[in-house]
């Protein structure tokens, strides 16, 4: 089912599944930019089919952490990571992991909508075509399915061959989410997906994520506390590269265990 796994680990991964346990297990993760220690000793399990929000003041390492999960941080010259991110029993940080395959299973949506300067349809099927799907009918079906899931179908169904750049910012972002769903990923990483959008588009994205979590595991970075409170099952508070507190969202917003969490949530800094 999952080519990131090496064969002998399939059994192990099945056991992991049975426990209905975390899809991702981060263990003592450290990330560096050259000498700069950006993310420090993070250990956290991430539950399947739930929304996990990462909050914290800017520069605390949320994006760095997120981009390490799908190895996008490999692209940054001088960035390196230590520790483990277990995905079905495999440490994603080892060199033998096929990052191309990994990124098909762990999709990502960025802060600024980044549709390709192509038609809406081409945006959706680009990765499918690369994966070798040629059948026109099948491509069309998947494209429609993704657009429906991203609640964009009704708005664009008559203009699939129009440039994606002709969409509004909010629509572009939903297109990027739809695009990320095309390969049926297990996990969806979103880095402040609505921070560049107006409130209406932003709430559309929130609704969408609540629906998507029935099928996908979602990790979202957000600087908007209300957003985290509204949609996340679990919330993790990062501060200066450390994970200060991690727990159920309700719990954390009503009775934070740590003073720093309370200060941040109540807006005393950040």
């Amino acid at each position, binding site marked *: 089912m999952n080519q990131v796994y090496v064969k002998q680990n399939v059994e192990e991964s099945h056991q992991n599944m049975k426990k209905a346990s975390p899809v991702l297990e981060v263990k003592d993760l450290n990330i560096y930019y050259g000498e700069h220690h950006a993310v420090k000793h993070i250990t956290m399990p991430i539950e399947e089919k739930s929304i996990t929000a990462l909050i914290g003041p800017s520069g605390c390492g949320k994006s760095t952490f997120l981009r390490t999960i*799908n190895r*996008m941080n490999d*692209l940054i*010259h001088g960035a390196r990571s230590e520790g483990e991110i277990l995905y079905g029993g495999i440490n994603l940080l080892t060199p033998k992991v096929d990052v*191309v*395959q*990994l*990124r*098909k*299973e762990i*999709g*990502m949506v*960025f802060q*600024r909508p*980044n*549709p*390709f*300067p*192509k038609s809406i349809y081409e945006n959706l099927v*680009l*990765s499918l075509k*690369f*994966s070798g799907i040629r059948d026109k009918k099948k491509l069309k079906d998947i494209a429609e399915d993704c657009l429906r899931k991203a609640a964009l179908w009704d708005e664009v169904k008559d203009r699939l061959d*129009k*440039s*994606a*750049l*002709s969409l509004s910012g909010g629509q572009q972002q939903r297109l*990027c989410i739809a*695009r*990320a769903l*095309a*390969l049926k990923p297990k996990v969806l990483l979103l880095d402040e997906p609505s921070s560049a959008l107006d409130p209406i588009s932003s709430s559309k994205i929130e609704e969408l994520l609540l629906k998507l979590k029935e099928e996908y595991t979602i990790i979202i970075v957000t600087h908007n506390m209300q957003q985290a409170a509204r949609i996340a099952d679990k919330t993790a508070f990062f501060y200066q590269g450390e994970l200060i507190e991690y727990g159920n969202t309700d719990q954390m917003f009503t009775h934070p265990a740590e003073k720093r969490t309370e200060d941040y949530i109540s807006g005393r800094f950040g």
Partner: protein
Amino acid sequence: MTSKITNRIALTVIVLCALVMTATLAALLGYILYHGLSAISLSFLTKDSSSFQAGGGIKNQLWNSFYILFATMLFTVPLGLCGGIYLSEYAKPNKLTQFIRSCVEVLASLPSIVVGMFGLLIFVNYFGWQYSILSGALALTVFNLPVIVRVTEDALQSVPRELREGGLALGVTQWHTIKTIVVPAAFPGILTGIILSAGRVFGESAALLFTAGLSTPNLDFSNWNPMSMTSPLNPFRSAETLSVHIWQVNTAGITPDIQTIANGSSAVLVLCVLGFNLFARMVGKFIDRKLTGKA
């Protein structure tokens, strides 16, 4: 002096400079076209040039110019694209890359007469291709390649990083991302650069004097066998281009109507280059509008 006055003076100077520039250009174009247009006629464009009598045309020169342009582009575009893609997308920021980039810059700023001498030594003499279309096109390749590399690299660099990340994050390999996302996004810039460089190649003369030669054999435009000596397609025959012809007529012409021929040829040359530029703009605008969906 108040800042308001300073502002006024600066503005005046700038506007004056712009005016001088535009006026010079307008005067030049006006002069060339005023004297040249009257010389252009169908027979001028479709007749062989004559060595002694008046009334020669520029058919062969025009053909040679386009042929050499085509051959040059055939060599430079694929090579230049690859070089530009390598420098922009793959090359690590280190000493070697820096060195390659400097080489490209030096090559781009070589005087074309030097490129011509180089072509004479290497292509004409060493490889023994004589004065020929091939030698000329290769010399112009040396002259044009760095330009295409630069144009490609610049156009690729102006593609936002987010697009590359978007592709890679979808589980698409780097090469496929470059091929299907980055290069298409940079395409309008690359294409405009290529067409503009075509104008430069089309008008080049110094690099061709010692490589493509100053004469053209008798051409038979019904003979399309590229191996035959009288075929216009033969890449191993010498070929005088339009700009070389202008130089040639002006320095060594002995026909009674040198002036008319030089003026007419200049006008044709300028019109062609102007055409390339306008074409570049139109194509660039068209693709841009198509990509951004405003069409």
